[in-house]
């Protein structure tokens, strides 16, 4: 670990989807970049805990950055996913009205969407809704063909890996503690892993972006954590819906309402709720909200059964709008007025995922205006993901096993993940070794048995093929150990 003389042109604080997108975008230019991430892997904050939707952009007030960047992001998302080998499906979305007065809201959304230059929006009647979604209860709907789904963690990982390939340095488990402006106008960033200096600091710390901003400029922003809880349904229930299914948003709330999201891996998410909480790291789920989600789900999709639930989780929105006000404030993407070369990204809540790439472009523009960056001719926009054995055709599968017998060993039964994929996931370029990191990359442990079958096998691979000690086996970073020791002291002594 380098502890001194860690100088970079740009230090990005926060390895979420936005931080990683900025890192990749900046790596298109000749500049040295470091990403500091306090967790054991990228994307563990807001980025991996959302619905994974590439919104079309009709939900946002015309003229706002949220509207503009979302629409821009949506239009270039397929290309981004193609470059990064990230699965992307444009499945479309329906916003379902159940009461007459809601149809007016749908029309308003359509008008707003058209003003925002969202293509293809249509109001459909109950017959057409029935055709698109036979199991959904509603009287009319707004259909948005441009809305897509992706895996938010795979995207974040892919952005980071591609940035890494293009020369960006990633420092995991590295938390910025304080920032000082030096005499030569550089920044000195003190972290738990030593000091970094840089000409620019980009604050993409998500939920903690207020805290990071506060390190150079007192009390300018405040982030209110607003939690959303979700259910995950078994793949066996995937036939129930074909599109993203949303209710008509209620004015004044800071969320889009409880919706149904097919995931790229063929699960369905139900959620999220919308609840301001006190602590930014409280990812608990609660029985009240879980009950509410079930009740809301029943309103639209009576076919869903509690038997289909395989997991619940929560994510936290980084909201600028205080609880007393609710609703949304626009994204802040700007250089600090008082601190030169300190760029803040504040309140990047939904549609932050869809907007990640345009946000990154804006940040690069800000720097480029001041620095006249020269292009990095070696920039490679392409990155290869882990090949998913299950998705291949029979002949390819046979060829793969012949080429590498590890493809023939299925470790995760529910998601049909092979040993080869697990090995690649563990061997990831960022060096993340937590079980969650393996899960996000490979899908192992994500299925209906939740690791009941494969957990032991994955641990054995980590131990035997990667030499991890018992203490190094963690669920999600330091202090989330799995084992208190060996069963028998005799073995311990060996």
């Amino acid at each position, binding site marked *: 670990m380098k502890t001194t003389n860690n100088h970079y042109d740009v230090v990005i604080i926060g390895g979420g989807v936005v931080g990683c997108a900025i890192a990749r975008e900046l790596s298109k230019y000749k500049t040295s970049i470091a990403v500091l991430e306090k967790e054991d892997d990228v994307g563990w904050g807001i980025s991996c805990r959302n619905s994974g939707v590439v919104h079309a952009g009709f939900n946002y007030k015309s003229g706002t950055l949220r509207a503009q960047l979302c629409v821009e992001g949506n239009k270039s998302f397929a290309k981004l996913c193609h470059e990064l080998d990230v699965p992307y499906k444009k499945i479309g979305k329906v916003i379902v009205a159940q009461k007459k007065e809601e149809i007016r809201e749908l029309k308003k959304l359509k008008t707003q969407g058209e003003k925002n230059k969202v293509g293809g929006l249509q109001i459909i009647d109950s017959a057409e809704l029935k055709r698109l979604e036979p199991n959904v209860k509603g009287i009319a709907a707004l259909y948005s063909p441009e809305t897509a789904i992706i895996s938010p963690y795979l995207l974040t990982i892919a952005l980071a890996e591609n940035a890494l390939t293009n020369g960006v340095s990633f420092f995991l488990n590295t938390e910025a503690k304080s920032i000082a402006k030096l005499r030569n106008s550089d920044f000195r960033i003190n972290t738990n892993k030593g000091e970094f200096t840089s000409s620019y600091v980009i604050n993409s710390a998500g939920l903690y972006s207020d805290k990071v901003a506060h390190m150079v400029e007192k009390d300018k922003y405040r982030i209110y954590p607003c939690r959303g809880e979700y259910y*995950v349904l078994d793949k066996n229930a995937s036939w129930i819906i074909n599109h993203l299914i949303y209710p008509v948003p209620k004015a004044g709330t800071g969320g889009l309402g409880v919706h149904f999201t097919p995931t790229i891996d063929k699960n369905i998410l139900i959620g999220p709720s919308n609840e301001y909480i006190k602590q930014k790291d409280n990812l608990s*789920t609660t*029985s009240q909200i879980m009950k509410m989600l079930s009740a809301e789900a029943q309103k639209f999709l009576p076919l869903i059964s509690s038997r289909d639930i395989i997991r619940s989780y929560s994510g936290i929105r980084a909201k600028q709008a205080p609880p007393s006000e609710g609703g949304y404030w626009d994204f802040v993407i700007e250089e600090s007025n008082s601190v030169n070369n300190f760029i803040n990204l504040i309140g990047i809540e939904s549609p932050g995922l869809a907007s990640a790439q345009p946000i990154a472009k804006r940040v690069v523009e800000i720097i480029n205006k001041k620095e006249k960056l020269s292009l990095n001719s070696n920039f490679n926009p392409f990155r290869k993901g882990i090949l998913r054995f299950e998705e291949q055709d029979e002949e390819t599968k046979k060829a793969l*096993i012949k080429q590498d017998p590890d493809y023939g060993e299925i470790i995760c039964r529910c998601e049909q993940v092979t040993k080869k994929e697990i090995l690649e996931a563990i061997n990831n370029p960022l060096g993340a070794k937590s079980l969650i990191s393996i899960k996000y990359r490979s899908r192992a442990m994500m299925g209906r048995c*939740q690791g009941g079958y494969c957990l032991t096998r994955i641990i054995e691979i980590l131990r035997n093929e990667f030499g991890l000690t018992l203490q190094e086996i963690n669920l999600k970073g330091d202090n989330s150990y*799995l*084992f208190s020791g060996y069963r028998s002291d005799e073995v311990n002594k060996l």
Partner: protein
Amino acid sequence: MKEREVIIIGGGAAGLAAAVACKQKGIEDILIIERGDYLGGILQQCIHDGFGLEKFHTSLSGPEYAQRYIDQVKEKEIPFLLNSMVVNLTPQKEVVVANSNGLQHYRAKVIILAMGCRERTRGAIGIPGARPSGIYTAGVAQELINLKNYMIGNKIVILGSGDIGLIMARRLTLEGAEVITVAEKLPYSSGLSRNINQCLYDFDIPLLLSHTVVDIEGNGRLSGVTIAQLGKRGGIIPGSKRKITCDTLLLSVGLIPENELSREAGIVLDNITGGPQVDERGQTSVPGTFACGNVLQVHDIVDNVSLEAEYIVEGVARYLEGKLIKEQEIKVELGEGLRYVVPQKLISRKDTIFSFRVNQPGEKKILVFEDGKKVIKKKSLRRVNPAEMVRVKLSSSELEGIKRLKVRLV
């Protein structure tokens, strides 16, 4: 495409017993397909004793019990594949197997489903709270401790009084951990009474009935759970919440027959058992595909798994001889007091073993089999408990000529 007479999916208790029984019936061309790297399945991690009392009239450990069958499989030279996962099963009884040698296609005259079950998880029962490490299902903990020699924690709360949870309470205590309590949501235990006595009471581990975990704390590793008492209707009794400092939560909250392959093959499943709907010989809705053991219904005693496997092989042999003929199909109707019955239907009137689980504990009950208003058989049960499967045999003479069959517990 390789042809086999009988393919058995799963090399655990059910699969091994079925294989041995097939061979004894003179069926030569058998293949066992096992996903793990050893035969015996879950038995290999059950190092406690108490297995085989019914089957072998002696108390064996899980591995010893398994070994009796493994020895026979090897002696009878029954072929088996290890580290081989069945990735596809069709109604035409075609099987695709993946292993390091490649993808192999088989077609069988008979498929015996013996895939066992998986454990219900935290996600499936929706325990609220944080998501730290230190939450294990009992079976996974058993595998990690007994087969891998890893210790999963020091201060443990167990939710659910399923048998594996009870066995693990004792196991963890013997390994020096403190098992603080076992909380059971229901007003009665879901494990066998012998396990409650031998695994909890003998070690002074309290069993809290009508209690559940309502919150989990911990950022990295689990640091505590909150338990609460439940009222008659299942709601939390106000003021009963209590925080317990611990580092591990062990879940023993039920087993789910693992029927993903059955589903793929279009086999009709029973909503209550989670296993295939079968006739009196364990034949599923796909002719020539049979099921036995925990994939069919979750058993409490392995001896019954072996017996069930041997029993369905009667049907397998008859099927192969072309003699398993549908005489007249009737549905077995379920009356009051019973949660489920296996088989769900009868296609002949031959001797049949019925398995039941009751809805709630009771004493001095009578199991009544009826053909319309006519009582065919009555069986007195001194004590019934949902944790203990009831097995009753009806002879062909008792079943002869019936038009309907209804079973109830009075």
